[in-house]
């Protein structure tokens, strides 16, 4: 019993000694609360952006997220952040009704709030100063316009989650930007199913020369495979939203036209930079800042593959 108590006391003393110096700093503190888990490759890029901005702007940043996609827990994390009275709060808003009260509480507390990644339509209403993210409609339009420029006339948009507002907007934007005839193909989020359905669609309508996928690893790669299997490698152009290593390889090899990069590193970096300058000098941009789209064509693909290994793209 005695040795256990001495052991515990020693451990406690060591912990206190280790953390005491850290709490002595008095820099501005910015807290990021997002719905993306630390082990998700997409979100670890956002976190790298946040950390880099913290170092560059010389502010303390903390990145907080629930262990799983849990809106209730995320609201509680926002409350915890508000209680610590940071110089700025950055949030993503995947569910406006669940997170609304917590965000409004932050605004009432006088904390500057910037939203990023999701929730661009509710951001202003909830009291955020601005939103940094990719507007899905505009991104779709840019992708559609580029494919039209490349010579596309008849298109297919592969939607793997009908009812998900962001994905529906991507297809809608693509249709507007493309100009030609576009069919939306609803599929499940099983890659094998996507491959089969795209192949069937290409076979039934031979005039299709463009296919737009809404997620690179989930839908983009099976689409490239389906186009190859249907023997239409040169005739049909494939493009996709978001990045994945294999899809970028396909772009480098000329099997896919481009990938739409929403540059989530900027979704982490820019809000921290804005709030740090706001805390120091009271500066704030006058409107939303689009972090993307950036169309990664063959020329840019090699650099992106390098950086994606480092967790920057």
């Amino acid at each position, binding site marked *: 019993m005695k040795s256990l108590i001495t052991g515990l006391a020693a451990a*406690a003393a060591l912990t206190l000694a280790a953390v005491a110096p850290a709490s002595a700093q008095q820099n501005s503190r910015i807290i990021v609360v997002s719905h993306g888990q630390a082990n998700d490759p997409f979100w670890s890029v956002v976190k790298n952006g946040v950390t880099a901005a913290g170092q560059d702007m010389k502010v303390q940043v903390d990145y907080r997220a629930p262990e799983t996609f849990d809106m209730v827990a995320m609201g509680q994390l926002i409350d*915890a952040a508000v209680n610590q009275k940071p110089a700025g709060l950055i949030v993503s808003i995947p*569910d406006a009704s*669940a997170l609304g009260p917590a965000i409004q509480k932050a605004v009432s507390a006088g904390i500057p709030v910037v939203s990023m990644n999701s929730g661009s339509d509710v951001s202003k209403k909830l009291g955020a100063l601005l939103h940094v993210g990719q507007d899905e409609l505009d991104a779709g339009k840019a992708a559609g316009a580029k494919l039209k420029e490349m010579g596309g006339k008849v298109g297919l948009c592969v939607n793997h989650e009908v009812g998900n507002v962001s994905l529906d907007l991507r297809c809608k934007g693509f249709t507007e930007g493309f100009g030609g005839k576009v069919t939306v193909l609803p599929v499940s989020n099983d890659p094998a199913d996507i491959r089969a359905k795209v192949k069937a669609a290409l076979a039934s309508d031979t005039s299709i020369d463009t296919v737009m996928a809404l997620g690179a690893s989930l839908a983009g790669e099976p689409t490239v495979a389906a186009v190859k299997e249907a023997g239409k490698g040169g005739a049909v152009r494939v493009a996709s939203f978001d990045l994945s290593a294999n899809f970028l390889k396909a772009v480098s090899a000329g099997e896919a036209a481009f990938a739409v990069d929403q540059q989530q590193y900027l979704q982490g970096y820019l809000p921290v930079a804005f709030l740090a300058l706001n805390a120091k000098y009271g500066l704030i941009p006058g409107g939303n800042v689009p972090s993307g789209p950036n169309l990664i064509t063959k020329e840019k693909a090699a650099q992106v593959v390098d950086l994606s290994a480092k967790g920057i793209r």
Partner: protein
Amino acid sequence: MVEISQPTAPVGPADAVASPKPVQDERLREASLLTKAMRRPELGALAGLVLVTIFFLSTADSSMFTLAGMMNILTPASQLGILAVAAALLMIGGEFDLSIGSMVAFAGLIFGAFLLLTGWPLPLAIAATLVVAALLGGLNGQIVIRTRLPSFIVTLAFLFILRGLSLVGLKWASGGSTQMRGIGDQAGEGVVREIFSGNALEGLFAWLASHDVIAKFPNGTPTVTGVPVSIVWFILFALVATWILLRTRAGNWIFAAGGDANAARNSGVPVDRVKTGLFMLTACAAALVAILTVLDAGSTDARRGFQKEFEAIIAAVIGGCLLTGGYGSAIGAFFGAIIFGMVSIGLTYTRFDSDWFQVFLGAMLLLAVLFNNFIRRKVTGER
């Protein structure tokens, strides 16, 4: 007949007036108050709570221990705690229910469907959700009893079934989305809404704020407007569960069924009824948590309650319940849930990198359970 005269003892004046001295039975050893306190199953959980509090007092931002900070910690603790107390009762009864996390999501779906699709008024929707949950819990219990399979396996199967049904049901009910919105608006206002969502004692807190006892935000609104209703439900549920376990016959039955089901059955305890009832209780507790969180959030989605079943069991074990059944307490699960809430939210008040959070959570839980085990072995004299 021979008369035998009894020798008479000399009667002195002292014997006639002095009352007889109470006999000290030297076979009984009086345990000191401290030892008696240490023998209770909750002690390990309380000691764990003290340890965790000391850790955060030294490493966390001081705002964690303000009134707003404590409410912030107790809210997730209470939502987990309602599940943990029910899981503790079931564990004392000798069974596990791994489906309660998925039941939270499923009950949220059912509740939303009753309100939005069939348009029922709030009290009816709440009652119907609890009934459906109780029926599913009863189904769990009956399958476990009749097939004599370990409850671990049966409820694990239901974990997947209910999670899948929640996803399928949500997509069907909302026309393709995995979220159901607008439930808060449909539920309306009223007495029933006040009981199941929002804050209690708002009048008291407003009065305290006007007298500057509670801190205010820069725009004048108080930082804490009331006690979140889930905390009140949590405390009530823990008290009722403790009273049932320690003061009623049903409590004895629960301990007996968990200690040795066969011996209990032979002593006349209706073990099957007790176990089925406990499964229905855990399912209803999950439905209650679903109702509370859905009304507060105004929406539900397919991932609610994910992995909560494991957290509830961990909270119960930290609180002193044995995995083998027959020993434990509801108050212990109460403290176990508070430890869990304090660790998971408290880590966000520290400056540790969030990548380390799961490591810390696991380490603290292991420490709390080891400490609990050590104390229990020491005081019950186990070898």
